[in-house]
């Protein structure tokens, strides 16, 4: 397992935690633990309490919903991505299941204790929430663009028949 010191360096080198103050990184590191999951494992289960998030350091995870057509993947996440946003918003239950598509290495953060500690320092709390809001906005933005169906051509207005 990583020592808190090396973990601070590792977190500081990621895009998501880039530019974070040393004391905030140390706080995060105190509530973090390196984890491994085998391919095929459900890391998060929809409807279960959300009390943590993962920073993926290696591997690929599918966010999915079970439907009448089978498990449909809404997004895949990989190295450097944060897995798990529902811990921040009531009712704090996972909205999607997350399945390891490959063996996964990640850093898991226990958020109940982390939030409690962060609430003692407004600057840390605000920075943490602000980073997650930024990530949520980015994912919402991507989802909107996906819904626009950008790669489809404009609807043809002619009356001639297509040949296939």
């Amino acid at each position, binding site marked *: 397992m990583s020592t808190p010191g090396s973990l601070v360096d590792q977190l500081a080198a990621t895009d998501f935690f880039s530019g974070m103050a040393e004391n905030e990184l140390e706080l995060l590191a105190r509530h973090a633990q390196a984890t491994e999951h085998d391919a095929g494992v459900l890391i998060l289960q929809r409807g279960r309490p959300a009390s943590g998030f993962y920073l993926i350091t290696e591997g690929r995870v599918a966010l999915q919903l079970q439907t009448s057509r089978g498990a449909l993947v809404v*997004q895949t996440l990989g190295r450097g991505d944060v897995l798990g946003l529902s811990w921040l918003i009531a009712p704090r239950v996972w909205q999607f299941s997350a399945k390891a598509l490959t063996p996964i290495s990640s850093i898991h953060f226990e958020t109940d204790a982390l939030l409690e500690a962060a609430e003692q320092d407004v600057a840390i709390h605000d920075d943490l929430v602000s980073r997650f809001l930024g990530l949520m906005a980015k994912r919402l933005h991507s989802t909107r*663009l996906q819904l626009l169906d*950008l790669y489809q051509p*404009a609807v043809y207005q002619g009356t001639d028949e297509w040949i296939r």
Partner: protein
Amino acid sequence: MDTLNAGSVSAMLPSAFPIVDKDWELADTYTLHFATDGAFDFDPGQMVMISQPGVGEVPISISSNPDVHDRMSLTIRGSGSVTRALGRLDYGDVVGIRGPYGTPWPLDTAIDQDLMIIAGGIGLAPLRSLIYRALARRSDFRNLTLLYGSRDPQSLLFERELHEWRGRFDMEVEITVDRSSPEWMGEVGLVTSLVDRARFSEADAVAMVCGPEIMMHFVGIALTDKGMHPDNIFFSMERNMKCGIGLCGHCQLGAEFLCKDGPVFSLSRIEPLMKVEEL
């Protein structure tokens, strides 16, 4: 650069080319192949005007290997009256072709740099000729990466080549789809998510991007957010083209004629125009 072809009398006069082969790539997308007898040179990124008498003429980027000199291919999506009519043609039918026109991908700017090729949807077609040329000159570049976003797994263009390129040891290929299906085991998400995860040296990389304009806009943001300079990001732009030689103004975007000054532009040059609503 003289973009006129040997044998062409005028930039506006098409030459007759019989179709020597045709492939259906997708339900609405086909590739027409033409024999050129070595008389048709082009660089990746350039386009031609292809016409069917009595129907009309459209600009299409060349999708074939620029270093194979006896054959030229155009990959076309049947999205309008001309492209649908062309799709009804087959072996032996004759079309008019003039060109090639426009600016090619500036591949020399990527020498000794990481080369990122980023495609969205049908945008992979104009980039295929670039990929062929980049692979022919592979030792000129450092990392070579293709990032490709498609609507869904059924809409992936050039699957055979994608498998071939992915199997190479000297090229990274990452593919994502906007909408998955239960059997799809690959990435799901916007093509910008591939940019976020791609391994490249921001200061020493060149990106060449083709796809819907809004997709290119957000890819540009993702690349500049990663630290790339807009001078090193190139887009292939598309507008309604008519003459192909900068006379008629149909494809004018601000002061730029896309057919003559483009279609390939650096982000630093085209970005101010892309931000103007309804231009």
